[in-house]
C-alpha cells in the first residue's frame, strides 16, 4: 500500500513523532511504500540538524533521515511546510539567503515546500495517516 504521513508535533515533547517514525519504519519493512512524510505545526522541528539529544536517548531527526524516503529522482520526501517552518525559525540555505539570515538548520534529508504537497499526498496515496496530539 502507498502511505503518506502527516506529523503535527515536534520531537521529544510529544510521542507523535516517534510513533509516526515507528509506523513508517514498520510499513517499509513490511513492503509498503511511504510516498511522503509531511511535517506541519511544531512537527517542522523534526527537521532540525542542530538537534543534540543525550547519548542514551533516541535521535528523532536522525531516525527520520535513516528511513531514506526519497522520490524516483532522489529528492527527499520528508517535506517540511514552508509557512510553518519559517515562523518557527526552521530554514534551509535558500530561505536563509532569501531572508538575509546567516546560517540554516534544515537537515539535508528533508526539504521545505508548500502545503500543496500535503494535499497532493492525500490525493496520490492510498492512505494518509495523521500523527498528532
Amino acid at each position: 500500500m502507498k502511505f503518506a504521513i502527516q506529523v503535527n508535533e515536534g520531537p521529544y515533547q510529544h510521542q507523535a513523532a516517534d510513533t509516526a517514525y515507528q509506523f513508517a519504519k514498520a510499513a517499509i519493512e513490511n513492503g509498503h511504500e511511504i510516498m511522503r512524510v509531511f511535517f506541519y505545526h511544531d512537527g517542522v522541528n523534526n527537521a532540525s540538524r542542530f538537534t543534540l539529544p543525550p547519548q542514551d536517548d533516541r535521535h528523532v531527526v536522525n531516525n527520520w533521515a535513516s528511513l531514506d524516503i526519497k522520490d524516483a529522482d532522489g529528492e527527499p520526501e520528508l517535506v517540511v511546510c514552508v509557512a510553518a517552518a519559517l515562523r518557527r525559525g526552521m530554514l534551509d540555505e535558500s530561505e536563509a539567503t532569501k531572508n538575509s539570515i546567516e546560517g540554516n538548520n534544515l537537515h539535508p534529508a528533508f526539504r521545505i515546500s508548500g502545503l500543496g504537497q500535503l494535499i497532493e499526498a492525500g490525493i496520490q496515496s492510498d492512505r494518509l495517516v495523521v500523527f498528532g496530539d
Partner: protein
Amino acid sequence: MATKKFMYLNRRSSFGTVYAIESLEVVLIAAAFEQDVSLAFMDDGVYQIVEGQETDGIGMKNFSKTFHALGDYDINKLYVSKESLEERGLSESDLMPLVYEDEDDDWEEKPSIRVVTNDELKAIMSEQDVCLSF
C-alpha cells in the same frame, strides 16, 4: 487529477494553540486542488466559528473573518457537532452566519453551516477518503 473527499476535522478552539489557524491555512490551499472539501467542528473546535470574536486584547490575529471567504472557494459544507455545541451552552444562533451562493440554484445564498448529531457526523466521516485532524 482524481477527486477525493477531504474532511478537515477541527477539535480545538481558535486561540491557545496554533492548530485552528494553521488548519484554516491548509483548507485555503486545498481549495485550489478542486477536491470535494468539507469541514467538521467538534469539541472545542466549535468555538472557531462563534460570532463576535475579538482579539485586540491578546495581540493575536483575528482570523475568524476568513471563514466568511470559504463560500467563495466552493467550500460550503461546514458540519458542526450538535452535542459539542450543547455541552458548551452554545446554539446555532451563536455561530457566524456563514453562507455560499449556490450556482445550481440561480446563485441563491444558502447557509454553509449544518448542525448534525455525532451519529450523523460519524456517518459523514466514514464516507471520506481523507480526514485531516487538527
